């Protein structure tokens, strides 16, 4: 759509989801091209669409860039210690089972330092929605490699490229017992939002991995350029396969441009939720 100088735009003082953000905390700390803002927006949009009272939503984060998400959403929100967002959130969800508790945190926070809590929260089917923002590295501390960094990708602690096999997070979540498992990217913003909404409607442990660019750290170290460039990669290489049956095929290799990245809603089953 072309926009001419004559076009008259309707003006609005407030965005429809402004009230779900802590406007008094803006501007945020996130870098240009970072994907976390879109995650926060998608979460706020899902709250608005959930039809549940805003006061019934709670957001819990760990540490890192993604861990700052809780600080920008205008619901009861808790920015906890590194790796402990899940057990903190479990305490809330068990004491007040009617609250809709969403954990938004990073791949390092949830799967490295918090990895034990992740598998046990999934195993016991804690009534939590988890949005795991995967930017393939530790962004806030300056781009160290982590348990999601693809083999060969570089980081400040693996200057010649990491040799460790990364987690396949949907496989991990499914194997440990999650009742809803999805993977999207911040390019697939509508599908991602709908997945969050679905997780809010479900009882039990719902896990959404969302790929997000970190141009400042991961992008720069791996010749991906700006955030838009990584969005290009998502657009060219993502393949939607809902209900994917072979979870071993869900490995991500962001560096090999011949390999596709499978996204979609993979698991949506019912199992009795923990103490809810």
């Amino acid at each position, binding site marked *: 759509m072309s926009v001419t100088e004559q076009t008259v735009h309707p003006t609005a003082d407030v965005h429809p989801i402004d009230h779900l953000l*802590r406007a*008094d*905390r803006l501007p945020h700390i996130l870098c240009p091209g970072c994907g976390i803002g879109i995650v926060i927006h998608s979460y706020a949009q899902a709250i608005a669409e959930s039809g549940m009272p*805003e*006061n*019934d939503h*709670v957001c*819990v984060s760990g540490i890192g860039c993604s861990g700052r998400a*809780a*600080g920008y959403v*205008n*619901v*009861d*929100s*808790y*920015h*906890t*210690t590194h*790796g*402990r967002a*899940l*057990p*903190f*959130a*479990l*305490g*809330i969800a*068990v*004491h*007040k089972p*009617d*609250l809709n508790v969403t954990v938004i945190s990073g791949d390092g926070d949830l799967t490295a330092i918090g990895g*034990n*809590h992740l598998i*046990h929260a999934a195993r016991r089917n804690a009534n939590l929605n988890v949005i795991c923002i995967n930017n393939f590295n530790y962004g806030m501390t300056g781009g160290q490699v982590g348990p999601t960094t693809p083999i060969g990708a570089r980081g400040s602690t693996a200057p010649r490229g990491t040799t460790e096999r990364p987690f396949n997070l949907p496989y991990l979540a499914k194997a440990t017992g999650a009742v809803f498992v999805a993977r999207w990217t911040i390019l697939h913003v509508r599908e991602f939002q709908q997945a969050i909404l679905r997780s809010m409607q479900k009882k039990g442990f719902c896990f959404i991995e969302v790929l997000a660019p970190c141009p400042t750290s991961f992008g720069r170290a791996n010749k991906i350029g700006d955030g838009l460039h990584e969005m290009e990669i998502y657009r060219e290489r993502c393949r939607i396969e809902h209900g994917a049956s072979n979870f071993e095929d869900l490995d991500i290799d962001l560096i090999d441009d011949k390999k596709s990245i499978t996204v979609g809603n993979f698991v949506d089953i019912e199992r009795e939720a923990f*103490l809810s």
Partner: protein
Amino acid sequence: MPDNTAAKTAQPGAAARVLSGTHFMLGDHACAEGALAAGVDFFAGYPITPSTEIAEHLARRLPDVGGRFVQMEDELGSMAAIIGASAAGARSLTATSGPGFSLMMESIGLAAMMEIPCVVANVQRASPSTGLPTMVGQSDILQARWGSHGDYGVIAYCPESPQECFDLTVRAFNAADQYRVPVFILMDEVVGHMAERVVIPDATDVPFVPRKGPESAPDGDPFYCYAADEDLVPRIAHAGDGYKVHMTGLTHDERGYPALDAETHDQLINRLVDKIRMNAADIEMHDEIDLDDAETVVISLGCTARSARHAVNEARADGISCGFLRLITVWPFPEKRIRELVAKGNVKRFVVPEINLGQLRREVERLTQLPVLRLNHAGGAMPEPEKILELIRI
């Protein structure tokens, strides 16, 4: 507005929560019963000797009175879970021993920084590391005070009997809520595994101190979760109350928003320390025998106090001028009382028996130039009354 003024124990179901009457009870079980009487809603823990009986007792009792019991994957998770539950309004408890206490330290700092009340029972065993898991120790005294990184205030009670395990657990919940701090029940293996008479009062006689909630409705005046009152303690609102609180372990302003500057940090951390220091006279508890004219003052706590009391009584029967100061709270430390004793002039020396290599003695030495005689055991055994008596006689 949340209704957090009514005593849980005065609510329906109080009879099931409060086992009023006289019992022959294990210290660990008395701690669990104290928690139930105090209205504990949520327990998260990980099995560890010699505290496991607290978890086992609550696993059986808590669901029957409307509470929730969760066995977590580790102590890191247990501590985080009880803080989360408390953030949602629960009176929450975990129980552990040395190694688990060490693992909880980071989140204990979070509870101190977020000012979320919670109670940790630490049944001490011989340490460090795995040490003697089934045998007594008192070596977490300094860890309880300084274990997490940074400065913050805490409260720690040291029961010397199963009765006090009950009484001080009730007190711990009230203090946690009153001051918005993590509170420790610093038990030891001997007290935890000792069975004695425990008298549990009527439900209506169990003291209950509620958390200070917001003064306005959620849609009323803005509510600041970290705006302190005169007692330096801010009011608290819980997840789901509608106040849209934000809490963070980062240095934060009165709204709870991150404020990453030196001045805010200095003010906040001073308040976290001062809210205990300034209220120490109300919090601090000790017991004393014949201190007014004593030349020798024995200072002790927990199970060691039982040996010490015996020795003091024997010494006095022998005509030795000897008094006894038993610490019921080790934190805040009874600095004022010890300074008074020193200033009076009749005290010639202190005797400090303890099951560690001098943690309590170090605190006493900080307050006086007088000789502080020590009787230490690294752990696994109680100091014998005869040995304490020998020191008193020197």
